[in-house]
């Protein structure tokens, strides 16, 4: 199956060949009460990657140098069984490194948080479709709208947009200041950041869509990533304003590269399901129903 045909303009999202790489942990630090930054040397994957794409990360370090019994390559074991999908936050293709910023949501990410510099983590990537190529429309306003752990991918997205001659503006929301995971990276990547917090502990008090509503003009472009309710609100707002929106949609995944059909995202036209992992995770807002049915 191929990516859905563009409905409203050319499809400027990029896909990459994916590879497996045992990436070296360069650094890991805790950025907030429940989130971490992990910097990885991944010289095979980093040059292939585009903002908006993600990695499948094995949460246990590769067991290298163990005196393993012959024929038992799977020393690390199969618990947790599946890798965890994490978006690329910052990207240094020339330097061959990249970072992810993640929340400790459960056991997998908790184990990941124990990875130490010098250890190696098995990655698969870069996976999925990127944000649309930002080039060739220098003057067109681009809003990067992120919520919670949807903020991190907007960092490399900002850098890409800047490199493409755009002047992206970031609107980043969270419950409170401590939840603005990746906001510093977004700013460092060249997008002026307006923080929006529900408790007012950073930036303005409210929801990102409150601020977006004031800023948005017809014809503007929006790249957004965050919880389903936020994406749905962005979708409605952009539709009402005649803005073009691209949404990065997260779903529970098994494979991450298109074979299991686990990551179903409902098509907005009622025509069944798309795969978040290869038909997205970045979708044109009009193509999908972002609200996950159950959670």
């Amino acid at each position, binding site marked *: 199956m191929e990516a859905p045909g563009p409905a409203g303009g050319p499809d400027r999202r990029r896909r990459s060949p994916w590879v497996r790489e045992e990436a070296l942990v360069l650094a890991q630090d805790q950025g907030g009460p429940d989130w971490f930054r992990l910097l990885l040397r991944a010289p095979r994957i980093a040059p292939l990657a585009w903002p908006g794409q993600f990695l499948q990360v094995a949460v246990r370090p590769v067991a290298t140098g163990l005196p393993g019994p012959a024929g038992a390559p799977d020393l690390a074991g199969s618990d947790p069984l599946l890798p965890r999908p994490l978006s690329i936050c910052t990207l240094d293709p020339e330097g061959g490194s990249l970072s992810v910023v993640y929340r400790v949501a459960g056991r997998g990410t908790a184990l990941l948080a124990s990875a130490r510099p010098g250890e190696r983590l098995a990655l698969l990537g870069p996976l999925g479709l990127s944000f649309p190529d930002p080039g060739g429309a220098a003057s067109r306003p681009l809003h990067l709208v992120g919520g919670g752990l949807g903020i991190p991918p907007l960092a490399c997205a900002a850098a890409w947009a800047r490199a493409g001659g755009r002047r992206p503006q970031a609107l980043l929301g969270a419950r409170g200041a401590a939840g603005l995971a990746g906001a510093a990276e977004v700013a460092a990547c060249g997008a002026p950041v307006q923080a929006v917090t529900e408790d007012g502990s950073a930036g303005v008090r409210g929801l990102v869509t409150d601020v977006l509503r004031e800023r948005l003009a017809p014809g503007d472009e929006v790249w957004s990533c965050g919880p389903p309710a936020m994406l749905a609100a962005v979708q409605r707002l952009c539709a009402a304003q005649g803005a073009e929106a691209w949404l990065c949609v997260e779903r529970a995944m098994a494979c991450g590269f298109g*074979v299991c059909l*686990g990551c179903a995202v409902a098509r907005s036209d009622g025509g069944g399901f798309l795969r978040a992992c290869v038909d997205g995770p970045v979708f044109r807002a009009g193509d999908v129903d972002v609200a996950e*049915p159950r959670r």
Partner: protein
Amino acid sequence: MRIMDGPPGARTGAAPLLAVDVAGIRCANPVWAASGCAGYGRELAAAWPLSALGALCVKGTSLEPWRGNPGPRVAETACGMLNAIGLQNPGVDHLLTRDLPWLVRQGTAVVVNIVGRTIEEYAAVARRLGDAPAGAVAGVELNISCPNVREGGLQFGADLGAAAEVTAAVREATSLPLLVKLSPNVTDVAAFAAAVERAGADGVSLINTLLGMRIDVAARRPILANLTGGLSGPACKPVALRMVWEVAGSVSIPVVGIGGIATGLDAAEFLLAGASAVQVGTAIFRDPWAPVRVRDELEAWLRAQGMASAREAVGAGRP
């Protein structure tokens, strides 16, 4: 390790050690990709040549396109996972016109896993496969064991009479090698194997997934939208191996072993229990190269054991 890039024939010359014939399906090696875990091969072909596979079982294919279940469709469990995809697939016509011609060019044996809501639908899919060019479809795997659909799954796989009936109908509808994929969610899997053998199956494959559940304790409801799902992965391997052992000891048609296979030694266990070939499923999600790795590790094990062919290992663990 260099992944072969010629057609299976190329390898057959180099390594007859691995070549097997399973129920009339000739394979370069006994390591197949399991249905629903390799799509239609396109994604994996980006990583390694599909000709490295013994055979590829495509996603369960129905007469018309099926939507599948709403999400969440997958959830992890201890050393396993649950899925409730609901047999989403674009239908047999799409397979015949789009995927099959491409697959044939990849040089792997294609086994079509078929599903239906009624016996007639099953038979119709099998009949439609007759429209494929000769040799394009290596075999049919009759899936009567999907736990995630209301109709067309366990309704056939958990009823001896219905299992025999649908097997006989599909047998009528196709002259292709016919495997019947059995459900583990039954009291006596050997009885099902015997019933479908009598009804004309050329072989059986097992296991499909074990019906399971997870509950989200915070949300206080099952994680999967479908409530229950099928358990796969290493967690289910002991059950799968026991069932293969039971079935291989009670039918005279070949058995294809499935369930939690992630290494060459896992595959060896199934061969020793009596399986003529194995399928790798969930392990692909963890490692897209798993089938190739399993094949290479199995080959290394056979050599270390001094075995002249994979066939020699089949049933060699039985008293």
